[in-house]
């Protein structure tokens, strides 16, 4: 009988330890640069009173958005009952937690006074979407933690879908909250838009699935566990659909802004005259993050061409990640670089950089901190897959289809971890 | 297994050495806290134990609720407890050996107030203070009954 068995990775190879050391060093470097920023103040970074949020926030938002999206695979399995995805659900939950912690790592360590973080709990201001997000993020960690427990503990398996449903609803609210951090900012022409909330949800679908696919393929390749074309083909098509949906919302966002005369200035800036931001928009977000993955991902391969499917998925997912970072960079940094419109139609001058396009040159402290969030994600995943059975032993077509077709009787055992 | 036992052994030795070292250290001498002239707003024993609570509860009132008549203001503490150099320059109260730093160093509690607050009283007449002399008292309306007590050193006499 073929059933899905999960097993910890051995984690004895030099490659594994090299990866662990690299990630730990990255995290330590991030911590060091946060301490350096704390000792000297944020003037050692490229961020200032014009570009208020910088590199750490680009990566933080990317990771947080991707976190909720990484959970999708588990949601598709338990909420929408597609059991093809069920063997992948554990890794999906793990990645969701790891990515969120990585994103929060960036956000918290970049605060002016991280030591005072407790103030958000002692004096919460519920008019602030930030305050809401603190509860949404911590709640997400707790719920996905329970979700993983329900998936791994055999006796709790029958209730997995309930927790899965809660996690799915929670993640929708969470990404809405993340998008609203920007969507609620009426003051800035680039943000003031309700479309940002659904756009962020779609972005999370795409980024999360891209990262999930990359981790899955890398993990299986390095550990040497077999994977079939069927799972990969599904992931590939799904990612393509998500990318198309993101592009649709991006188009709606920009078309709306172009149509509203008052927002044409910022649109002209992003789409035509913004230099780096225009380049990143067309070259990064649209070409690399949209067109390239669509071409790669929506092309059909025969199911037995596992190599071809995997290659398309890897390059497509890499393009989605690169394009996604470009997209968030354009949104966060570009949105701040465009000056506040205090006196529409007037030319404004002041000693405080009013009316001029602001420049942002990231310096090493914040760049190291930004990248350290990714290292933290890697570290969590590397340690977790070694300690607990997250990765299925094998994802060949026979296992996947047998698992899907198996009758109800005796099914509870199918989810149980098999220890070597 | 052997590696783990080795690590454990090394850790135990380090711990034991640390304990021996800690036991043989001389007790740290009680700090000598500089005395301020006059009387404090509350008995010293009470202030010693409650000044942080007082400051914390009062800061809420002062900043958010427009209650500037309170006695337990940090500016009041600084005005009274500041020491001066021979040439009459005020020394920050959080400088080593000064009133706040002495105790906080001894008990090992981080002193956060002066990351934002001035650690010296206002220099009379400098930079358009409210009234020149006695600016701190005037600005913060220290109750009449207490005003005399702040005058001996620091920012000049009361109104």
């Amino acid at each position: 009988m073929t059933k899905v068995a999960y097993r910890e990775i051995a984690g004895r190879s030099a490659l594994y330890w090299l990866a662990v050391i690299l990630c730990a060093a990255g995290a330590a470097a991030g911590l060091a640069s946060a301490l350096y920023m704390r000792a000297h103040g944020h003037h050692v970074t490229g961020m200032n009173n014009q570009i208020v949020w910088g590199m750490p926030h680009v990566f933080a938002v990317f990771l947080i958005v991707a976190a909720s999206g990484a959970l999708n695979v588990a949601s598709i399995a338990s909420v929408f009952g597609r059991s093809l995805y069920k063997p992948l659900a554990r890794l999906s939950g793990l990645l969701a937690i790891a990515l969120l912690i990585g994103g929060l790592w960036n956000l918290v360590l970049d605060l002016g006074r991280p030591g005072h973080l407790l103030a958000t709990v002692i004096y919460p201001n519920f008019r602030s979407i930030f305050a809401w997000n603190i509860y949404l993020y911590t709640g997400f960690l707790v719920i996905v933690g329970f979700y993983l427990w329900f998936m791994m503990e055999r006796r709790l398996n029958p209730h997995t879908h309930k927790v899965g449903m809660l996690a799915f609803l929670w993640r929708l609210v969470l990404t809405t909250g993340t998008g609203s951090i920007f969507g609620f900012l009426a003051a800035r022409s680039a943000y003031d838009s309700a479309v940002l909330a659904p756009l962020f949800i779609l972005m999370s679908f795409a980024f999360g699935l891209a990262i999930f696919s990359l981790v899955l393929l890398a993990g299986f390749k390095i550990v040497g566990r077999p994977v079939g074309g069927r799972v990969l083909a599904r992931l590939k098509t799904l990612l393509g659909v998500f990318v198309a949906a993101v592009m649709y919302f991006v188009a709606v966002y920009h078309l709306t802004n172009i149509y509203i005369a008052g927002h044409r200035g910022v649109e002209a800036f992003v789409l035509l005259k913004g230099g780096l931001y225009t380049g990143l928009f067309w070259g990064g977000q649209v070409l690399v993050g949209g067109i390239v993955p669509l071409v790669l991902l929506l092309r059909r391969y025969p199911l037995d061409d596992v190599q071809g499917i995997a290659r398309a998925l890897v390059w497509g997912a890499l393009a989605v990640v690169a394009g996604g970072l470009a997209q968030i960079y354009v949104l966060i940094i570009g949105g701040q670089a465009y000056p506040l419109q205090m006196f529409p139609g007037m030319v404004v001058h002041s000693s405080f950089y009013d009316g001029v396009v602001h420049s942002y040159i990231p310096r090493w402290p914040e760049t190291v901190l930004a990248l350290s969030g990714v290292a933290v994600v890697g570290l969590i995943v590397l340690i977790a897959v070694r300690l607990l059975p997250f990765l299925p032993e094998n994802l060949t077509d026979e296992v996947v289809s047998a698992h899907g077709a198996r009758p109800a009787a005796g099914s509870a055992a199918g989810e149980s971890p098999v220890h070597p | 297994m052997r590696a783990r036992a080795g690590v454990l052994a090394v850790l135990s030795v380090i711990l034991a050495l640390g304990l021996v070292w800690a036991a043989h250290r001389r007790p740290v001498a009680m700090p000598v806290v500089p005395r301020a002239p006059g009387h404090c707003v509350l008995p010293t024993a009470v202030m010693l134990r409650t000044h942080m609570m007082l400051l914390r509860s009062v800061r809420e009132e002062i900043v958010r609720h427009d209650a500037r008549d309170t006695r337990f203001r940090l500016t009041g503490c600084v005005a009274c407890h500041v020491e001066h150099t021979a040439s009459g320059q005020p020394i920050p109260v959080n400088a080593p050996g000064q009133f706040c730093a002495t105790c906080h160093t001894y008990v090992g509690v981080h002193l956060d107030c002066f990351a934002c607050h001035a650690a010296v009283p206002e220099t009379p007449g400098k930079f358009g203070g409210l009234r020149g002399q006695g600016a701190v008292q005037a600005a913060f309306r220290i109750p009449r009954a207490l005003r005399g007590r702040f005058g001996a050193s620091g920012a000049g006499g009361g109104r």
Partner: protein
Amino acid sequence: MNDKERDEPSRDGAEIEEGPDSVRRGLLKMAGAVAALTLAPGVTVFARDLVLKGQHKAKGPVRYGLLIDARACKTGCDACVRACQDYNGLSHDPGPDNAQWIRKVTITDEKTGFTRSFPMMCQHCAHGACVDVCPTGASFRRPDGIVLVDKHRCIGCRYCLMACPYKARSFVGRVVKDQRPWAPRGKGTAEGCTMCVERVEAGKLPACVAACQKAGHKAMMFGNLHDPKSAIAVRLSEVATTTIRADLGMAPGVHYRGI
């Protein structure tokens, strides 16, 4: 093999009897109820704040405000800016990461050649975005209308800098020494114009207004907007004034004439 059958592995016997669809429907209801219960208190508080506080906010007996006459403000004069920097212990150097609580802004209409120069600072809004977005309530509005940062609570997230339409907030990116006793400010916190709150409480004019009067320009006027007999309220009732970005509905406490 259909979807329902594929779903089975995660169900136990009791639930299978009900049929997967009804189970799913029940689940949806339950999850909805859970979500509603979780979110309801917060939403209620939010809605109450939005409606009630929004109404009461502007109606205290005191609301301090400014009236700036851009016609009387002299191009090139920065007495108000200097006075603010001196009084509050700010740097004179307008570097990109130095705080500017008040600044002189010059606007020019290139089509007509119309130009004006006037000071801008925190507009002390009745419904300020900075107050709404602050996760800890560090950014708050006093009952007398002055908007401040309570630095004891500020965590340095800079969301208020993102939200303010007037660029009135600054972030302290350096270690600060030599603060004025009445103007505490420190690294890692947001800050902005305090309307010289302790001077106002002592019955004096804000430093910028005093400096403007001393320079003889009389371009700035300070007072209680809610006292109909105050000079500023009388003037506001007589002449046409405006607020910057009135379209955002934040009801600033700083009014401008001649822009």
